[in-house]
């Protein structure tokens, strides 16, 4: 088990997931402690994105339990789960391409009704992501990949979540942007938001994470504090070597 806080914010317990006949998760158990950054590592098709979808209620597990802040999420719809305080930065960003940057960011506040506070939070996003200031009325689909990642993160923060789940936030970004994104994740976390992130780039993820899990074809094969995993030869051989070469 991990070194998490006594009562975790998010817990997946013995989750089994199927797409039709094919099983994607085998007795998957993951916990995210309050205020922690937890990273899920794994190769292609190991079931990482599906884990995110289970948390968000986009895919239903066949068996197992998912709890957030002590209450079960099973049976809730995605919007209901979002209202509980989980925001997401989906795989490949998934911005609303034909809406403006401003509209995209404000869509993040869809579950809120406090207009003035929303306006204040929008300003706050522009200090956190200064580059977006000049782009507010531009079509989101016309932004560069790095800029889109910023919009997706700002959008997720706008709901004032207690936890953010991110699917490969550094994918396809230049090294400069990768550092920037990791820095921002740390900033967000320091403001009290727990983070659950899926990554293939293990060395980078382990820099900022508190704990990590390694997923292999649907099974957790390793878990522990980021520090110990970084030195674990199995992680080094399987992931760190590969991703540094890439």
């Amino acid at each position, binding site marked *: 088990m991990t070194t998490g806080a006594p009562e975790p914010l998010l817990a997946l317990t013995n989750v089994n997931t199927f797409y*039709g006949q094919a099983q994607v998760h085998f007795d998957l158990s993951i916990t995210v402690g309050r205020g922690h950054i937890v990273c899920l590592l794994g190769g292609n098709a190991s079931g990482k994105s599906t884990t995110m979808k289970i948390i*968000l209620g*986009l895919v239903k597990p066949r068996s197992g339990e998912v709890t957030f802040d002590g209450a079960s999420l099973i049976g809730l*719809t*995605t*919007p209901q789960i*979002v*209202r509980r305080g989980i*925001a*997401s930065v*989906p795989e490949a960003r*998934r*911005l*609303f*391409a*034909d*809406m403006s940057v401003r*509209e995209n960011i*404000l*869509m*993040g506040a*869809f*579950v809120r009704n406090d207009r003035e506070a929303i306006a204040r939070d929008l300003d706050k996003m522009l200090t956190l992501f200064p580059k977006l200031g000049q782009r507010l009325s531009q079509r989101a689909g016309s932004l560069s990949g790095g800029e889109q990642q910023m919009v997706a993160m700002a*959008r997720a923060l706008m*709901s004032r979540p207690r936890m953010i789940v991110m699917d490969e936030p550094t994918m396809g970004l230049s090294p400069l942007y990768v550092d920037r994104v990791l820095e921002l994740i740390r900033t967000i976390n320091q403001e009290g938001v727990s983070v659950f992130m899926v990554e293939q780039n293990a060395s980078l993820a382990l820099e900022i994470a508190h704990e990590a899990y390694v997923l292999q074809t649907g099974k957790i094969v390793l878990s522990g504090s980021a520090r110990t995993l970084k030195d674990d030869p199995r992680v080094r051989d399987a992931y760190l070597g590969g991703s540094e070469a890439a």
Partner: protein
Amino acid sequence: MSSWLDYTINGLIVGNVYALVAVGLALIFGVSRLINFAQGSIYLVGAYIGWVAVVQLHTPLPLTIIFVAVVAALVGLIIERFGLRPLQNSVRIAPLLATIGISFVLDQLVMLTFSPNPRALPSQLPDVRFQVGGGTIGPLDLLIAGVGISSALLLFVFLRYSKLGWAVRAASQDRDAAMQMGVDVNRVNQAVFGIAAALGGVSGLLVGMYYNQIDTAMSLQATLKGVVAEVVGGAGNVPGAVVGSLLLGLVESYGVAVFGTSYRNLFAFLLLVVVLVLRPNGLFASARQAPPEPLTGTFIAPSRPVRIPRWALLVAVAVFAILPLLPVSFYVLQTLINAWLLGMLALSLTLVAGTIGQVSLGHAALLAIGAYTSALLSLTLSVPVGLAIIAGGLMSAALGTILISPSFRLRGHYVSIATLAIGEIVSLVILNWESVTRGPIGISGIPPLSLFGYDLIDPKSVYWFSFTVMVVLALLQARLLSSHLGRSFRAIRDDDIAARAYGLSLNRYKSLAFIFGGFAAGVSGGIAAHLYSYINHETFNTQQSILALTVVILGGLGNVVGAVVGAVALVGLPEVFRIAAEYRILIYGIVLLLLVRFRPQGLLGTI
């Protein structure tokens, strides 16, 4: 009414009316990637609600419009809640089929309530016309333009400034991402169906007033026109739908000016097919824009087909073969002859829609081609009837395949739209090509069935003839499907991209399926022509295409035995229960809805 300005005004006004339908279709397509075939039925409901308001309740015009919008919106909400929401996790084509079933049910309910006879729908506006340049314009034209423009404005404000409007826009761009922002997609669907229905209903009201006539045939025409306008503008693109509608209105109006009224619809459908084939994303889509999400059209609910032992099939064939020797009534034979003819059509459709996954909504056109070919050959060239029927089958195979071939690259719902349009085009060509088809008069005095010089007039011989032909076609098809061809067909249906990667030539296999299917349907049409002795351009209509689709789904898509069982069930059961003719289409619609919802694999299972 002769100046160009008049035709332009007329085109724009009619375009405005189409826009009210098309905008609703675009909203729904945007959010659910669904072509709502029930949109025309709501338009029909709107027209008749309007009639009730104007003629019976004597409401003033503004109240009439509001009343129609509210009732139509309610109908839309009911359709969304009970017809479509339960299908959310079904295969993609299921909601499309459900909207077809819903449209049958609504149309028939209107017909049963109000009778199919046309009614006048007075506009309640003074009958004056103002001179504008070289043309004239009346208060009703202004009303229609006003309703069109104010609806567009309202919609713009809704989408731009309301929270629900934002949710609609977000959901139409990325449904999953919108859900992750907390958008309740069910509410979005509700909103979109309500708005689409209100606009569609008002459109029906205005059209009824414009022509001062309403009848139940309006429904399908409205759906088709709306779909044309929407696809021309780019599926799911709301401003595009408005522009597409105005364009369609103008094209039709100028077309009528040059060629005459009976060509009006021909232009609409030709425009649709050309746009679908050349620019499937609509006229205004930028080149780099990704095509709308692939709408894989397969309707393959996982199922284990029921295996019927060979001996049971042989016994069944034997029983039906000796049936005329038993003391059965003329009426039973007549019913079964109809079932065998429908069975041949179903064999054809189950191959095309089931085995290779091209859900055709225009299959009756193949009947028409076979029927006209056979009738004309025997009548004008005195070709023996047996040969003429075979020629009809061949003609259907050839012509049907040629007509559909430009659409081979389309997928999913677009295949259904294209086949529907091609079906309409065939029927319109028959109507207009008078020198050959005798146009609206139709062909009468078609010689009866005959074989080797012997006329088959008594019901027993007609029964045996049609039964034998159907059994032979079924055997051929079963043979075809058990060969490697059958496997290739199914591979294309299940995953056309992978099939292509394996080196299968999609066009060649789709052609083969349409050639074989076209032949079976053409033969069925040919036999029907000699049986009826009179046919015209409406003998083989969209209703029959949909009926055939219901048969095929009932039996189990791709299932040869299922196609025949489905045909016997759908033709036979209403007879057994003595259901009055006017209720039958209603029953068929309900059967289709129930099947899609509860047993998409049909009675015998999909293969």
